[in-house]
């Protein structure tokens, strides 16, 4: 019982430090942390699909692109406040996810991976041929110039920490129980009455929504959006790296992975071109040496779990 309180107070203190951070830390530090929050959100959602629902998606960038373009279009073309645009990005992503969920659910394993990727590529081509969003030239999200770093930081923090909380409570709910049953034995779980399609459907929608939201904030920060970058496979490359290094199928994995990834990215920024080679090599080395990632290996060795999914 006491360990529960220690953990709880530890989390509260960490939260307070993060809230106070932009008041005392440098602009650079706040910017790095902002990126970490956003990658935590994106990676947690990829992990929800890959680590818990057993479907490796190579097409998360479809929601990244939609989220980014929603912010641009709703704030610039229609004059909505930018954060309404961010929420719209989440909603539009969910609509797309719902539309493609039927066909997608028929694809298993590798087919799912490539199917989602092709949808994202198709969207990228469609957007680059669409005059409404200025073809492949891209858009500058002008309303985002007026935002202070503070508001983007807090938005990123809410989405980042919120997504961790969401995954945590989701996995402790009935849905999480069903997901793990499916992961462990799909035939047996279906026999005892778990509706596999519905469970994966909910996961897919949630993942689409949060990815769309986080992407909107990403593009508030970068300000410029261009179809082949927004719908590019590079996003999923990063998420894959984060989750594999951190530990797939753990709640903490994406957090640790995102910290490592963003710091490594800052550190390797001067070695342009080599950073992705190094990231790829680290990914392969992790799969060979610690297939459960850092957090997974750590948990196996020491049996310490910060976010226990099992209810004692």
């Amino acid at each position, binding site marked *: 019982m006491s360990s529960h309180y220690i953990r709880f107070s530890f989390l509260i203190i960490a939260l307070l430090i993060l809230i106070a951070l932009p008041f005392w830390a440098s602009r650079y530090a706040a910017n790095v942390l902002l990126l970490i929050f956003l990658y935590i959100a994106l990676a947690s959602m990829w992990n929800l699909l890959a680590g818990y629902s057993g479907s490796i998606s190579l097409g998360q960038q479809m929601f990244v692109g939609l989220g980014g373009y929603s912010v641009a279009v709703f704030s610039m073309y229609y004059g909505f406040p930018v954060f309404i645009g961010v929420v719209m990005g989440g909603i539009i992503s969910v609509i797309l996810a719902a539309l493609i969920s039927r066909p997608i659910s028929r694809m298993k394993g590798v087919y799912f991976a490539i199917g989602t990727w092709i949808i994202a590529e198709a969207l990228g081509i469609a957007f680059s041929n669409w005059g409404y969003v200025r073809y492949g030239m891209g858009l500058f999200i002008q309303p985002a110039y007026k935002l202070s770093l503070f508001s983007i930081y807090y938005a990123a923090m809410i989405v980042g920490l919120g997504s961790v909380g969401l995954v945590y409570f989701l996995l402790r709910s009935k849905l999480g129980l069903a997901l793990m049953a499916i992961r462990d034995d799909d035939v047996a779980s279906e026999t005892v009455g778990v509706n596999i399609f519905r469970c994966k459907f909910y996961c897919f929608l949630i993942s689409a929504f949060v990815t769309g939201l986080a992407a909107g904030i990403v593009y508030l920060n970068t300000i410029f959006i261009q179809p082949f970058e927004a719908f590019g496979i590079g996003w999923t490359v990063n998420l894959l790296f984060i989750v594999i290094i951190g530990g797939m199928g753990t709640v903490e994995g994406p957090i640790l992975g995102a910290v490592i990834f963003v710091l490594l990215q800052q550190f390797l920024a001067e070695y342009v071109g*080599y950073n992705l080679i190094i990231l790829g090599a680290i990914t392969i080395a992790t799969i060979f040496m610690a297939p459960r990632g850092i957090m997974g290996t750590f948990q196996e060795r020491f049996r310490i779990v910060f976010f226990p999914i099992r209810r004692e």
Partner: protein
Amino acid sequence: MLVFMEPLINGILLGGLFAVIGIGLSMIFGIMKQVNLAHGEVMIIGSYLGLVFMRLLGIPPLVCLIFVIPCLFVIGFLLQSYLFNRVLGKGMEPYLMVSFGLSIILQNTLLKVFTPDARSLDSSLTIRTLDVFGLLHLPVIYLIGFAGGLVVIALLHLFMKRTYLGWAIRASGDDLGTSKLMGINTSRVYALAMGIAAVTSAVAGILVGMTFTFYPHSGTQYLITAFGVVIIGGTGSLMGTFLGGLILGVAQLLGGRLLGPGFQLLAGYLILLVVLTIRPQGLFGRR
């Protein structure tokens, strides 16, 4: 009607090239039930090696095949021996991710070595077109691609049916346990199979380099093309792969003619998604 005749015929010809792009992926998928996401990059390495030999020796691109084929065989063999064999039998995810990591490494290494400039394997054949009664204009290079497709698939068919190694590869694909019991060194057979798949990629890489311009990141696009061929044609069947290539080629060129050149790739992707939804095992595949 004649307006659609040209894209139709050119699509069929282009489809032969697409079949060569997809055949290696199809072969590996049939044998190991795994998808090599670095397939496109291996092929583009073939294109760049062709460029290197062309510049070094001043020979036409098709002659470069003599040098590029052994190079890629070795690359494929080594990749399978030292990377992929280690993650076989651990399910789908590790293989998928190792090959994905490899594709990122290869792509960025190519970018470092060859710069992001557009390249092509120029020869006197690339620009020539064939006039058919003044009605149709067929690029000669498409005809070569189509012929290349037929030759590669015929040779692969003979190899699989007639040689001991071909039997061993097929046996390992059908029943891994029994083939081991029969004394087949399956990890070596897998490595040789990947080498042969890489050889088909060498041919594909040279033909693609002669037909289109290529960049270090072109591999991604051709991986999707290859996957399209495999999905439409169904896995493991050589004839299906060939027909899959034809359908994808026709879909792209007809789509491009109907909707505008920007939508050429999109038309191919849409056909692919429709097939994935309706018949995930492919149009000519068995369940």
